[in-house]
């Protein structure tokens, strides 16, 4: 209800404005209001202005003729004002303004202006906006309330952290918990939320298995506590544990995923995530008991906020490609190497040596990397979200769609649609609180069955063309298997993921609350792999009678119910705080998967029709059930906000253990001393200081179900002469028991110069014993492994540093955050190591990631073949000579982020770094001279004339040379430095001034991922450290974000 302007001159308006608003002369309000009232004839004015200081009359109120302008309390009071950013002075649109304790709420318009009505002048207004500190102010009879909000980025201490069963502020936390906010996630163009964590969190090591969208991601929090398996942290989404195991089946899966599987976390939309918390130490994880040993990752999805409906539309689109290609031989070099190899081996070129005998055009030269992995993958994202609500009920709803393709030839797309809904409600007396969230994600992908990277690397450069002129596959007179025949195969993967959870809490008594949270997750995956006969060379006359369709359907259903009682109160008249928590947890997970093979079709056009298959065979059927029950508790005592003691405990039972071994106890104690609150520690430059420490016991039950049972199961699909077949299921072990990890941590948190410099330094030491592992055994036992408790003690220790600084905080704001983790891993004890299967693998006192290799000794001067130390002096180089220990574990890793903002501009540059060793890129190739292409660094091999070469003589078939090459790849010489510094992410965004487009918030951005990598590593990529799988891709996207 804006009315016309005051007929006064601009000067007067400016004066009013500066007097009332800029100078904060509110204490003078009474006389001035009277004065204005007189001047305008019993009307009061409130002012609003934009940058040009135009003053508008927004509301007029009647004033009594007394000396104090009292407002008629029976009438409502209209208040208006403007909200600005304290740091830039820019108006802030879309700020939520609500009246405390009521359902009244509005949001500011494009000019930062709001107006609302309150019932009386004692109300309190709450201003909140993402990224800014929430501000409360009492109305006190004012009608004009202008507010400038302070950005809360620096207020680390006040950030509320989700610790799973309870919340805690950064200031008062006793454990090691890191929070990654929506902001960090949203500036990265990634499809899997786990990838957003790469390099961001000290102590968390995230590795991408390959560059194919959807592939698995490996996570390790504070090192390998377990030997081979079960090192994945527990992932909990809105209170519901989420599977981190891949659901792919090797038979039906696209072979992209064959070794690593598809990551289930692909089925979580990163744009719906509000925050991710990483729980590291005993204090934070012991309440998760048996599943806390590897750390816990808590994902919290977005919730609604009070205020007017806000629509947020985000669209981006971009491309991904391979950032670095390997330098390979061209045809001329390749043929020279081959011919030399034949000469060295005194071998004649045979009719089947197509690459060198002229069958293949020896003048052809193709860059296969360009052909197979040189494409541009396209990526498009659209997200539409609406949120809002009243003080009592808020909602957040979003829908999104994402589409991605690959760099490979052929059509390969994956699409994902997601719906997120979150509703909060509380009763008028605030006693009953309810919260519900559901997510539904549906994805589909049709990647073909191959990663062409290995082919791109090793295919001879003079190999024939891929397609004939008529567009059909070229089989070059049956002299090769055309790699693109893989494109004839089909793959169709469909995943639906349904997540729902609800929390209901009720305050029974003063400070006592009961709460029940429950959730369910249903993840369904159907993979269909189609292998038509056209994948074979037509010369072999394979018909559709051999065509196959392999179908895997799997379903993972789980539910969880956790009743809890929470007691929270201040004692000794507010000096101390006590918090008690007692809860129970009941969880159930049912998994089934079935793989069916359909063989023999009348025509390849009927592969879609299962009914047409001549034979149907169930190749695998795996049901499993997992039950888990626990009681847990927490006692937290906060003395004068200086000393905080946090005790947590849990008694756990898991169906994964045999009778009598199902239950065990875990617990931890954490302590924090906020010494900056002590009087004797009041220094000016130090604004915050805290020492915290914790120790406790956590466990691990990631071993799979039923491993204690001695059973027979069906030999998938096979029968013999109509008798169904039963095989022993496993090497069973009824006696294995809980594995435990003792964790200790001590940390110092300090803030300087009003927390503009904030440093956290921590040291941890985790000792795992009674390791529950898939103990490797030789196949003479009938199996490759047995589940048992490892008679070893393993220590993971390390230092972690997190530094956050605000370098400039003027019109330009520049902040830096840096983290680095130094890790160490040591085998402390191993009973009877010498006589165990691990005698050749581990050394007591050394790291677990140490690997034993042949000791390289150069090239033999007479034979030109690699030589190695004959450790046991038996005259032969055998596996027993692999005694040279080499370390491959990352020594340190971390990230550095710089964030600069100026007016509407934001620039973020994030560097990730890792110091590690890995297998040389040569491991992806064959011995030089074999019929496969090579990296160019094998040129200039040994000859009698070139005795100082680093590559041994070329060979085709010579056993000694081939063996030596094989050993070379297993020697210390081929463990190389694979450290790297990567410009992981650059994000540039510009927020258009709202007044330009009629109040619509608009932000445009460019984001780049994996832009440049600095490394000495010669292969495609140091992270995957191989040249046979697709490296993480470089991605650049452009986007626009509109807020209504």
């Amino acid at each position, binding site marked *: 209800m804006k009315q016309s302007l005051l007929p006064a001159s601009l000067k007067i308006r400016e004066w009013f404005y500066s007097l009332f608003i800029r100078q904060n002369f509110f204490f003078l309000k009474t006389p001035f209001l009277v004065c204005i009232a007189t001047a305008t004839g019993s009307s009061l004015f409130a002012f609003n202005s934009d940058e040009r200081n135009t003053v508008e009359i927004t509301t007029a109120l009647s004033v009594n003729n007394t000396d104090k302008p009292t407002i008629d309390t029976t009438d409502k009071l209209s208040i208006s004002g403007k909200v600005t950013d304290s740091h830039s002075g820019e108006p802030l649109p879309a700020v939520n303004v609500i009246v405390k304790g009521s359902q009244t709420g509005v949001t500011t318009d494009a000019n930062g202006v709001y107006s609302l009505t309150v019932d009386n002048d004692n109300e309190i207004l709450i201003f909140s906006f993402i990224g800014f500190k929430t501000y409360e102010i009492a109305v006190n009879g004012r009608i004009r309330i202008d507010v400038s909000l302070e950005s809360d980025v620096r207020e680390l201490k006040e950030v509320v952290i989700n610790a799973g069963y309870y919340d805690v502020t950064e200031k008062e936390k006793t454990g090691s918990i890191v929070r990654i906010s929506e902001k960090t996630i949203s500036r990265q163009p990634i499809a899997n939320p786990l990838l957003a964590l790469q390099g961001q969190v000290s102590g968390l090591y995230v590795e991408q298995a390959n560059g194919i969208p959807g592939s698995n991601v490996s996570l390790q929090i504070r090192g390998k506590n377990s030997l081979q398996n079960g090192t994945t942290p527990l992932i909990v989404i809105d209170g519901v544990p989420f599977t981190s195991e891949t659901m792919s089946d090797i038979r039906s899966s696209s072979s992209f995923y064959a070794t690593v599987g598809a990551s289930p976390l692909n089925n979580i939309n990163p744009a719906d995530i509000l925050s991710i918390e990483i729980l590291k130490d005993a204090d934070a994880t012991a309440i998760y008991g048996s599943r806390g040993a590897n750390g816990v990752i808590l994902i919290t999805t977005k919730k609604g906020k009070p205020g007017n409906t806000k629509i947020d539309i985000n669209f981006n689109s971009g491309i991904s490609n391979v950032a670095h290609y390997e330098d390979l031989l061209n045809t001329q070099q390749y043929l020279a190497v081959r011919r030399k190899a034949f000469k060295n*081996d005194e071998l004649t070129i045979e009719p089947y040596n197509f690459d060198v005998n002229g*069958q293949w055009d020896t003048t052809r030269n193709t860059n296969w990397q360009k052909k197979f992995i040189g494409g541009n993958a396209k990526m498009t994202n659209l997200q539409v979200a609406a949120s809002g609500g009243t003080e009592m009920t808020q909602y957040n709803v979003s829908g999104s769609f994402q589409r991605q393709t690959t760099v490979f030839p052929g059509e390969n797309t994956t699409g994902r649609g997601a719906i997120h809904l979150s509703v909060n409600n509380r009763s008028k007396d605030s006693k009953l609180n309810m919260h519900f969230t559901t997510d539904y994600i549906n994805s589909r992908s049709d990647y073909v069955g191959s990663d062409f990277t290995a082919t791109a690397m090793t295919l001879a450069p003079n190999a024939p063309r891929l397609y004939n002129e008529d567009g059909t596959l070229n089989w070059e007179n*049956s*002299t*090769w*298997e055309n790699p693109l025949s893989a494109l004839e195969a089909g793959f169709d993967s469909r995943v639906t993921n349904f997540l729902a959870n609800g929390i209901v809490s009720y305050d*029974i008594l003063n400070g006592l609350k009961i709460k029940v949270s429950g959730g369910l997750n249903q993840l369904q995956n159907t993979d269909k792999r189609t292998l038509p006969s056209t994948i074979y*060379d037509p010369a072999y*006359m394979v*018909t559709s*009678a051999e065509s196959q369709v392999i179908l895997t359907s799997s379903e993972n259903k789980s539910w969880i119910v956790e*009743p809890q009682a929470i007691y929270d109160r201040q004692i000794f008249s507010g000096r101390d705080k006590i918090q008690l928590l007692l809860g*129970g947890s009941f969880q159930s997970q049912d998994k089934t998967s079935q793989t069916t093979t359909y063989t023999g079709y009348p025509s390849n056009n009927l592969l879609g029709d299962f009914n047409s298959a001549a034979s149907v*065979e169930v190749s695998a*059927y795996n*049901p499993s*059930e997992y*039950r888990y*029950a626990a*009681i847990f508790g927490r006692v937290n005592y906060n003395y004068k906000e200086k000393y905080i003691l946090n005790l947590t405990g849990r008694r756990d*039972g898991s*169906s994964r253990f045999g*009778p009598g071994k*199902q*239950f065990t106890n875990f617990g931890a104690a954490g302590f924090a001393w906020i010494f900056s609150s002590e009087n004797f520690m009041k220094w000016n430059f130090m604004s915050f200081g805290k020492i915290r420490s914790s120790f406790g016991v956590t466990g691990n039950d990631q071993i799979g*179900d*039923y491993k204690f*049972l*001695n059973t*027979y*199961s*069906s*030999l998938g699909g*096979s*029968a*013999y*002469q109509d*008798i*169904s*077949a*039963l095989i*022993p*299921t496993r*090497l*069973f072990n009824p006696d294995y028991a809980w594995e435990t990890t003792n964790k200790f941590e001590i940390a110092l948190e300090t803030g300087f110069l009003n927390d503009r410099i904030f440093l956290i330094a921590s040291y941890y030491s985790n000792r795992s014993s009674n390791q529950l592992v898939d103990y490797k*055994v*030789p*196949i*003479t036992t*009938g*199996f490759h492994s047995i589940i048992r408790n490892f008679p070893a003690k393993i220590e993971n220790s390390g230092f972690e540093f997190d530094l956050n600084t605000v370098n400039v905080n003027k019109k330009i704001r520049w902040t830096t955050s840096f983290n680095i983790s130094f890790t160490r891993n040591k085998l402390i004890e191993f009973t009877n190591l010498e*006589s165990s299967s691990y005698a*050749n693998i581990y050394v007591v006192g050394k790291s677990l990631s140490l690997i034993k290799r042949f000791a390289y000794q150069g090239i033999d001067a007479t034979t030109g073949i690699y030589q190695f130390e004959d450790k046991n002096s038996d005259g032969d180089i055998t596996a027993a000579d692999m005694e040279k220990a080499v370390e491959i574990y990352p020594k340190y890793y971390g990230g550095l982020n710089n964030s600069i903002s100026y007016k509407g501009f934001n620039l973020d540059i994030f560097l990730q770094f890792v110091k590690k060793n890995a297998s040389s890129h040569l491991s992806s190739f064959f011995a030089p001279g074999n019929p496969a292409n090579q990296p160019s660094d094998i040129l200039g091999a040994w000859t009698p004339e070139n005795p100082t070469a680093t590559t041994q003589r070329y060979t*085709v*078939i010579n*056993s*000694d040379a*081939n063996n030596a090459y*094989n050993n070379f790849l*297993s020697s210390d010489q081929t463990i190389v430095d694979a450290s790297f510094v990567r410009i992981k992410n650059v994000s540039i965004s510009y927020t258009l001034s709202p007044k330009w487009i009629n109040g619509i918030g608009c932000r445009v951005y460019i984001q780049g991922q994996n832009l440049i990598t600095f490394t000495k590593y010669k292969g495609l990529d140091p992270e995957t450290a191989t040249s046979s799988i697709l490296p993480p891709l470089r991605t650049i996207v452009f986007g626009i974000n509109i807020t209504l």
Partner: protein
Amino acid sequence: MKVKILSLLLALQAILSCQEFVEVGVPENQLISSTVFEDETTAQSAIAAVYARLANNSGNVSSVTFLSAFSSDETVCTSIGTDSDMSQYYNNSLQDTNARLQELWDFNYITIYYTNSILQGIETSRRLSTSLKNQLRGEALFIRAFCHFYLANLFGDIPYIKTTDISVTAMPSKNTRTEIYSQMIADLSDSKSLLAGDLSVSNSEKTRVNKFVSAALLSRVYLFNEDWVNAEAQSTEVINETSLYSLETELDNVFKRNSSEAILQLPPSGRAKYTNDANMFLNTPFSYLSEELMDSFDPTDQRLTKWTIQRNIGGLEQYSPYKYKDTPTNTGTVNEYSMVLRLAELYLIRAEARAHQNKILGAGGAEEDINPIRLRAGLEGIEISTVGEFLAEIGQERRRELFTEWGHRWLDLKRTKTVDEILSAVKPGWNETDEIYPIPRAEVLLNPNLN
């Protein structure tokens, strides 16, 4: 207050029910092991699984048949395709990290574990009939010996595994050749004595081990052990069982299902209508028959036309084995089974055993055994009286008769100690040490006793 008490009660209830809550039953796709051998049907299923494994492996890409043919002078590896592990067999430059080597090793030891698991199950079983127990024991013992036979002949000294006890099987030491052979003989003798001498168990097919199957392998083991008397005795026992076994007169019928010559044959795996052998040799571009093998045939030898076929491999006209003719294009009935043991081999074993005992001519002489094989192939009978020459001729006959079957050529070259002499002449990469396949590195690392 009521709410409080109620919630307390609920919590208490919850805690009490924890124990029950975390107990899950046996999954619906598994049977408790001890019950498997208390029921006739499930006990039969346990042995069926072992046969199914053998059937699945026989003639496939990681079988003795396919791989050892490369190692000897039987087949040539074309290097077409993506499987580089095959060419290591062909070039006799087998590395201990070769995936196909690991598969070969794993297959046999896993099968051995299954047989030991059955033997152990029968031992403690109370409800199975004695006759079924005997039959299952006999079959399991045979298969255990059979797997060890190939392990020992491919890898040299290896551990002979007789138990499922992990404290024994996790770190076993190698047994010597003598130990292995005496254990094989013991197992096979036991097996033979436990089994019936008919085809009742297998519905008149030759798909299960019976007394004569054990005798047949036993005779081979004696031959390899140079125990000529026993080799002759065991083979005679089989050859004399004419009601069950006789040489096929038509070469085309030898590898047919239920051929009269078959002693043990394995049906195609699953629902396939063709043998793995045919699939590998006729349906893939990986191999073709070597010039040396082709040249060893007399031009009039019927086996040349009936058991080999010319086909285009990588633009080259080459010959492939054609003993098995049905490829995956066959969707009708199953006509062929993969042969494991057949009577022709028994004749050749006896011929050799007799020759070594200097029994060559006349009744009960080696000549009587080799000539039926030659005549069937359209050749003339031989008349050689000197032992040396005769043995050399048997070697050639075995090569021509048994080519691309279960690595016979490779094993024979090693057994007769001619491998070095013969292969060094035709294989450019040949080394004396290539005679023994290396034990997979992964296994040596897990069990240093295998070094």
